[in-house]
């Protein structure tokens, strides 16, 4: 029986275990997780900070899951070493169950799903003895969320370090709790990886209306516990709490120690193999040319491919990368960004449309090539965001009416006046009764609703055309038209 050992019980590791079990009831699965509790859905942490989701609701598995699915789950354990020669991993003991070090665990396939760790900007005082200083917290784990929740209150000044996707989600959640939030961001506009300067500025304006302040082009220079931050221009920002959300780094130390090929992350090929064919890597810790790290969709796609291969369900499965759609999860701010958004409106070989309405928080940019969406930013137009994402993901040609696409749902036409309707317009759909037939019946003496109903059957089905028929009656009575 094949033995699969998964290092890491986050979203990637948990998903892989689910995908393996779904395909194969017998394959042996061991998971080693560093955190003491069951895997949870990191994507939902911003909703936990915002107070709309409980920590319990974010759990991917309950405590019965491992036993129920015949999985050897070791929580609160660390992999100390990978012995590639004997194909075993050495694991720290399970707290309260075994000694300091357990028996080496043999594997036929080892999967590294070690994720990533927060990157902390090099400001003085943020880190003390290798750990975050008191009053400084990362935004990465459920424990972080609990700490944020415990240390904030209404009216508390809070600084969020980092104006990327996660930083903004954290800031929005904290503002929703009533904190006075300032986002400190080293670049001139927010979310510069996903947005152009125009969109970044509309986003900042929208968030500003929700009470969030911004210090752009600013670096934190010094942290003063209980007081706040000194920025590199010498100004002071008050903060009872500093939330660090300045990006993540792939967690590769175990791979480096084992001598695997590592760049920004652990290098993997299209079958998620590292430089050792017995060892695989998925999720944030892996580096595949077709994707960027920090998002869950690539991890899920990779888990499905790897499960197909490890169980033999589909030996031909390949991971070809994941097209990235960035979607901000923040109440009252609807933002999607995808593909190449940095193409200029006057770029000769692309069709680029741009619409800005900062006062209403709307910004839309659409980049097309050969009729296909290749990039877009949609802010403040939820319907357009949904539609454009579908066109992008499915490779569907964009509609010829580009403007309607950019603006989202076309507004319903105003109800036409009975006078303007053509004679052939169907008024009662249930009985296929046209305006012309109603006018004829009226001329023949059916001048009330019941009489018209009797003569034409209009209104006798669902009854939905009653208002329209009454409108026609009024119009006929008032105008006495000579012809319909």
């Amino acid at each position, binding site marked *: 029986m094949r033995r699969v050992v998964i290092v890491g019980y986050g979203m990637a590791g948990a998903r892989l275990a689910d995908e393996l079990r779904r395909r194969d009831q017998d394959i042996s699965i061991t998971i080693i997780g560093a955190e003491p509790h069951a895997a949870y859905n990191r*994507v*939902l942490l911003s909703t936990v900070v915002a107070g709309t989701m409980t920590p319990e609701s974010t759990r991917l598995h*309950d405590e019965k899951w491992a036993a129920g699915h015949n999985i050897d789950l070791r929580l609160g354990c660390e992999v100390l070493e990978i012995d590639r020669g004997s194909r075993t991993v050495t694991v720290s003991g399970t707290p309260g169950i075994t000694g300091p070090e357990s028996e080496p665990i043999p594997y036929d396939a080892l999967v590294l799903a070690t994720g990533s760790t927060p990157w902390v900007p090099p400001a003085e005082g943020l880190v003390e003895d290798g750990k975050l200083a008191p009053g400084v917290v990362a935004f990465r784990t459920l424990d972080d969320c609990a700490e944020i929740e415990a240390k904030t209150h209404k009216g508390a000044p809070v600084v969020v370090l980092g104006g990327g996707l996660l930083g903004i989600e954290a800031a929005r959640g904290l503002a929703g709790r009533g904190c006075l939030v300032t986002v400190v961001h080293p670049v001139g506009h927010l979310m510069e990886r996903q947005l152009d300067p125009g969109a970044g500025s509309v986003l900042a304006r929208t968030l500003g209306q929700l009470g969030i302040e911004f210090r752009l082009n600013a670096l934190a220079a010094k942290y003063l516990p209980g007081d706040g931050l000194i920025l590199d221009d010498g100004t002071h920002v008050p903060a009872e709490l500093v939330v660090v959300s300045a990006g993540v780094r792939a967690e590769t130390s175990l791979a480096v120690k084992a001598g695997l090929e590592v760049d920004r992350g652990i290098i993997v090929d299209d079958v998620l193999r590292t430089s050792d064919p017995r060892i695989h890597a998925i999720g944030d810790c892996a580096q595949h040319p077709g994707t960027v790290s920090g998002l869950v969709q690539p991890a899920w796609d990779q888990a499905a491919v790897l499960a197909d291969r490890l169980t033999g369900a589909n030996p031909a499965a390949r991971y070809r990368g994941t097209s990235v759609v960035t979607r901000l*999860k923040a109440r009252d701010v609807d933002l999607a960004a995808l593909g190449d958004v940095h193409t200029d409106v006057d770029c000769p070989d692309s069709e680029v449309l741009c619409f800005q309405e900062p006062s209403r928080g709307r910004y839309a940019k659409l980049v097309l090539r050969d009729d296909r969406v290749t990039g877009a930013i949609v802010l403040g137009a939820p319907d357009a965001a949904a539609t454009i994402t*579908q066109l992008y993901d499915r490779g569907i040609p964009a*509609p*010829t009416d580009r403007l309607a696409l950019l603006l989202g749902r076309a507004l319903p036409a105003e109800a036409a006046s009975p006078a303007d309707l053509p004679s052939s317009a169907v008024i009662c759909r*249930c009985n296929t009764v046209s305006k012309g037939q109603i006018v004829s019946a009226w001329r023949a003496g059916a001048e009330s609703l019941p009489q018209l109903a009797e003569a034409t059957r209009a209104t006798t089905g669902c*009854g*939905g055309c009653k208002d329209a028929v009454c409108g026609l009656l009024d119009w006929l009575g008032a105008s006495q038209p000579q012809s319909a």
Partner: protein
Amino acid sequence: MSVIDGQVAPGPGGLCQKGWTAGELLRHPGRLTTPLLHGEPVSWDEALDFVASRIRSYEPDEVAVFGGGGLTNEKAYLLGKFARVALKTSQIDYNGRFCMSSAAAAGNKAFGLDRGLPFPLTDLQSADTVLLAGSNPAETMPPFLRHLEGARLIVIDPRRTPTAERATLHLQPAPGTDLALALGLLHTAVMEGLIDKEYISSRTTGFDDAWRIAAQWWPEHTERVTGVSAADQRAAVHMLAGRSYILTGRGTEQHASGTDNVSAWINLALALGLPGRAGSGYGCLTGQGNGQGGREHGQKADQLPGYRKLDDPVARQHIMKVWGVDWLPGPGRSAYELLVADDLKAMLVFGSNPVVSAPRASRVAERLKALDLLVVADFVMSETAAMADVVFPVTQWAEEDGTMTNLEGRIIRRRKALDPPAGVRSDLHLIHGLAARLGCAEKFLTEPKEVFEELRKASAGGLSDYSGITYERLDAEQLHWPVPSVDHPGTPRLFLDRFAHADGLAKFIPVDHKGPAEPPDEEYPLQATTGRVLQHYQSGAQTRRVGELMKAVPEMYVEVHPDTASRAGLTSGEPAHVVSRRGRVTATVRCVPSMRSDAVFLPFHFPGEGRANLLTNPALDPTSRMPEFKVCAVRLERA
């Protein structure tokens, strides 16, 4: 409604064009009035003798019966008994498999009982919000909308249907992504704090397992898969919290994941605390005239009267006793599997036109043609009847007594208003005639009332218990099943105190999104979906014979987005071919700007080259055996 001098007069509820013109079929010149043997008129005795002698020459399981959801309860009951007692075959199923089976399976899983609406239809009149998932009643049953006049409507449909046009909120998911949307709405309801925790803990089980899956469908992720914006998902769940109803239709049920789709909608309803309470609930909207009754009394492959299970030893004992037999066959195959089975010699079709209405219709036609004996009972020459060796002319609605069970589980009397034309007999007589020639005449009564008396006994103690219902009571009062005794008032509202599972609780069923069985690709880049138009019904065998309806919608058409048409070099009014891996349909192009540009819509009422079901995918739901009618991959070409 009633018939006065051959003219239809409406009841209090209202009628659409199909209802107003239904009288035309009673005296239609195309009406069948004599049995046909290989196309030649013969006497009833000659036709019956021929069929019976052929049947005697086959093994029991070489003979199949295919019923219909338009048959009265009496006919549906007797047909199931005929198959198992007279023919001794396990091979019986019916077209309701193509209609209600997914909703039925999911209802049974969640509530332990399947009744379309477990509350009276009129309860909908006091709703704040009604969510219709994959239903288009503005065309399929317009008078129903009168009950929704006071409610805000949420309509879930990939198309902007006439029903969607009336909606407060129209959610337009990509075809085949309903389950993802339902999971997203459950997630959003949790996030917005709208779930009813007290109800979940006191009246249900299994929430945690269902949630673990829904937890992975946050609104933005759901948006990416379905195309329904996160903002609309939020708006929808806020509208649903309160006095609300969630109702499903074929659009969400006719998928290879149909049962799971419905389970996902029921999970949402349970999380919001809607079912089993006055003023809110979950229900499914029946498709055929007797879609409810037709699935309760034994014409389904796995079922015995009273909504009993054929593989339940206690149920078998009860029915064997009522029927006076000491043996019953086991469960047989489902509708599509039966229609394409290559081990059958004969099939008897009652009230159905599978050559037009079954998926992958060309294969079905091929198999029926290859049968040694095809027998069809109908009142017009349907496309299936035209292929038959023997055709029996039978009565229709105004010419017979009987009962139907409507979508709210209310039993309705059908009263004979006219004598049928000479030569026409009831299906009950046909069944009796065959049974007599197979040596068991006395077990097959011909008077609807007598058959109903037997059905009462057979259903006694079952889930759908009719034992307390009599024709006399139906003349005087409204009765919703179960009615376990003659002094029982009936059960308009089910589940108010407890659900039908042994523990009295409703069950969340953990389900996840898989997507369509046949995703679009380079060769077939569009997704086709099928459905009804107002003027026609089912295979169109009846409505295509009514002049007024044909004038309104005379020919097969395909709805496409104007851009999609122009990319295929087509404009409105031109003939086009719609092609799938299974066949090719010829249809006139109708450009509809509200269509998704990656989808086309085809009505399924037309015959020959215009059969939408030449395209459809017979991938079956593992539980309900429902085919995936509602989505398949196609391309559009100039004809």
